[in-house]
Structures are given as structure tokens and as C-alpha cells.
């Protein structure tokens, strides 16, 4: 356990020293959401109608931005090789790196999302479902992204490949995240959708470490 936390602490320290990642993700998130009123027009009714979808799709894309570096930097400077030879299983290390990635990029997304929803006139009834959905959904984005990041290691134009691999897998998160908000606004309650998101999170946390670790071992051979 202490080795696990040591790895999380090291990744957080690297993220803070290098800066950039969290700021870039948030800036992308804000800028892209702000583009929509310019594109579709500023009518509050229209924006209110599409607010949930815009916030979720943009959050998805913002999370994708930082994924390429998840293992790439460690791979290039030889750290990944040394990490793979530590007593701590690679599967646990994948989980630690996902946790650190989520703390650096997912958590800021959760904090900024309600402010952006405000900008888009999201119905006030939808906020609890938005925040709850993001809390459950953003860790899934980091986890699924880890598989893509591990598989695209060493590939040329890995970033594009990563997007193609990961975006289709993000669709369930998007569906249930948006559905939770719409159901809450319509008065049905967000509980079923949030429970499905929770189930996805459990599934991803259980399966992703094995898939990503296998891909990393292949990349290191």
C-alpha cells in the first residue's frame, strides 16, 4: 500500500512541477464550451436544451487531451522499464497512475463543470445530477483512457490513435451522464443512470489494470 501511495505522490509531484496538464485541460474545457453560444446562437432556451450534452462531450474531449502523456513520458525516459521491475505489480501501478491522473485532470473538471453549466443556462434541477455524474464518470474516463494510452505507446501519431481507440469506449459514460441530468430535470430522478455509471466505474476499475498492464508489458518487451 505504501508503495502504491508513493507512486501516486510521485505522479502528483511531477504534475505540479511540470504544471501545464491540469491548466491545459481546464482551459480547453472552458474555451470549447464558450464556443457553443457563438456557434448555435445565444438563445437561452436552445442553450438550456443542449447544455448537458455540451458539458459532457466537452469534458470527454478535455480528458482525452492529457491522456497521451499518461505513460508516454515514463516510457521515453526509461522510468516505465524500471517501474515494471519493481515488486509492486504493474496492475497496481496502472491503478495508481489512473488515480493520480484523475486527481490532476478529472477533479478540476468536476469543479469547473457547474460553472460552465451556469453559462449555458442549465436547469437548476440538473446540477446535483451533473456533479454526481461527473464524480462517477470522470474516473472512468481516466481508466479507459489508460488502456488506450498503454496500447498506443511507441506508435507514431499515438495521440490520434489514442482518440480513435478511446472515444468509442466513452460513449456509455456520455449516454448515462447526460441521461442522469435530463431525467432529473424531467422529474424522473437520476438514480438509475447514476447507478449504471457506478457499475461502469466498478467494472473499469476491476478490468482496466489487467488490460493496460498487459499492453505495457508488450510495449516494454
Amino acid at each position, binding site marked *: 500500500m*505504501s*508503495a502504491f501511495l*508513493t*507512486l501516486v505522490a*510521485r505522479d502528483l*509531484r*511531477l504534475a505540479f*512541477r*511540470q504544471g501545464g496538464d491540469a491548466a491545459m485541460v481546464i482551459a480547453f474545457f472552458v474555451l470549447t464550451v464558450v464556443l457553443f453560444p457563438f456557434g448555435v446562437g445565444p438563445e437561452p432556451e436552445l442553450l438550456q436544451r443542449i447544455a448537458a450534452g455540451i458539458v459532457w462531450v466537452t469534458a470527454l474531449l478535455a480528458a482525452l487531451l492529457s491522456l497521451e502523456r499518461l505513460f508516454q513520458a515514463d516510457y521515453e*525516459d*526509461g*522510468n516505465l*522499464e*524500471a*517501474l*515494471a*521491475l*519493481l*515488486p*509492486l*505489480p504493474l496492475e497496481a501501478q496502472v491503478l495508481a497512475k489512473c488515480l493520480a491522473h484523475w486527481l490532476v485532470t478529472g477533479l478540476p473538471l468536476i469543479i469547473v463543470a457547474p460553472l460552465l453549466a451556469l453559462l449555458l443556462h442549465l436547469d437548476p434541477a440538473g446540477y446535483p445530477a451533473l456533479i454526481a455524474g461527473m464524480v462517477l464518470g470522470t474516473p472512468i474516463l481516466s481508466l479507459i483512457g489508460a488502456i488506450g494510452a498503454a496500447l498506443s505507446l511507441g506508435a507514431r501519431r499515438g495521440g490520434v490513435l489514442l482518440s480513435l481507440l478511446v472515444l468509442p469506449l466513452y460513449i456509455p459514460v456520455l449516454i448515462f451522464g447526460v441521461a442522469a441530468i435530463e431525467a432529473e430535470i424531467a422529474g424522473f430522478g437520476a438514480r438509475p443512470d447514476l447507478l449504471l455509471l457506478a457499475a461502469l466505474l466498478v467494472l473499469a476499475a476491476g478490468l482496466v489494470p489487467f488490460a493496460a498492464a498487459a499492453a505495457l508489458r508488450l510495449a*516494454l*518487451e
Partner: protein
Amino acid sequence: MPSAQTLPSPQFLSTPGDFTGHALACRRGERLVFRGLDFVLPPGGALVLIGPNGSGKSSLLRLMAGLTPREMGALAWNGIDIREDPAVHRTRLHFIGHSDALKPVLSAGESLAFWAKMRGTSASIEPALTRFGLGTTAALPCRYLSAGQRRRLALARLVAAPAELWLLDEPLTSLDSEAAAQLLAAIAEHRAQGGRVVLSTHAPIELGGATRLSLADFRPTPAELLA
């Protein structure tokens, strides 16, 4: 492959406790790098890998570490295949490859402390730093270190956390004579305590009682390359 059928020659008959390889073959991509390689590494032993570029010194080290799967042959610690329990094998080895595994934004002290802590050592890293002449550079971010200092820092991992088997891929690269002497002293001390060392080198290196393994002897014949 003919070597796979032959029994180990008497000199390779091992005793319990040895780290042994028998009839090892390694393939990198399409190319067979070496085949029919045997070695025995008893506690306190040292193996020096020599051979021209591309003869498979690094490949053999990576094979021993469990990073690269072997094409054929057996690799056993105390008679037990290292694949039986990879976690146990990782716990007993240090692998220092070509890259120094440092982060430009972490200080030398932080880097070493991280690797030591990941191996469950809570002891101070100061002795390891001073041992390799890095006492004054502990607070310096790794991006300001010279190639030799980075190499010293990577090697300091060996003494910061104990492990029985040291796998060193050309450890003398970019080291000055003082650091090379410090490394040789560390290796001698490690072996005196029953530790084992495998290292590849192009430099003439003198380790007392070390076995020299010339990788060129295990190069596949042209016929085997086509097979």
C-alpha cells in the same frame, strides 16, 4: 535447434541456490540473437557479458530480468523457473539499463528516495548518495546533472535498497575513473555479502573470480538464422 536437445555439460551442472540458464535462445523481432546459452551464477558470483554490438548482451540481461520473454530454454533461480512467481523474482533484482530512469523535474535526492521507497526501504538515502559522490548534488533537479552524474545516481539505487541480483547494462558508460572505482567497490562488497552481479561491458573490467561469457560464441549459424 540442435542445442535444445543436448544435456548441460558437466561444468554447468548447478548446485542448489544457483541462478541458472540452460539452452537459452532469444529472438528480437525476426532475428535470432543467440541460442544454446548456458550459465550458472552461484551466490557471490559475477558474470561479465562481452561481445560485439548486437550480440545480445542487453537482450540476455532483459531476459534475466523477465522483461523480455525467451524464445526457448530454461531460466531458474534455486531450481525454480523465474516465471513461476515473477513478483518474487522482481523483488530480488536490480536492473540498471541504458536509460537512467530519472525525471528532469525531480531532484537527485527525490529520485533516489522514490526508487528506494518503492522497494520498501525506509532507510536514509544519504549513504547511497555520498557513496557515489553525489552528496552535494542531492537538491539539484536531475535536468542539471551531467551524463556521468545521472549514471552515478542510477547506480546509487543499487545500494539505496538491497537486492540480491544486480543486472547492469554497461554500467561504466560515461563514468569517470573515480566513479568506476566506486562501482567496482560496491560490487565487491555486494558479492562479499553473497550478492550476485551480471554486467555487460566493452571496457576491460577486472572482477575477482568472475565468469566471462562471450555472447559471440552463441551466435546462430546462418542455417539456424534461416530456420
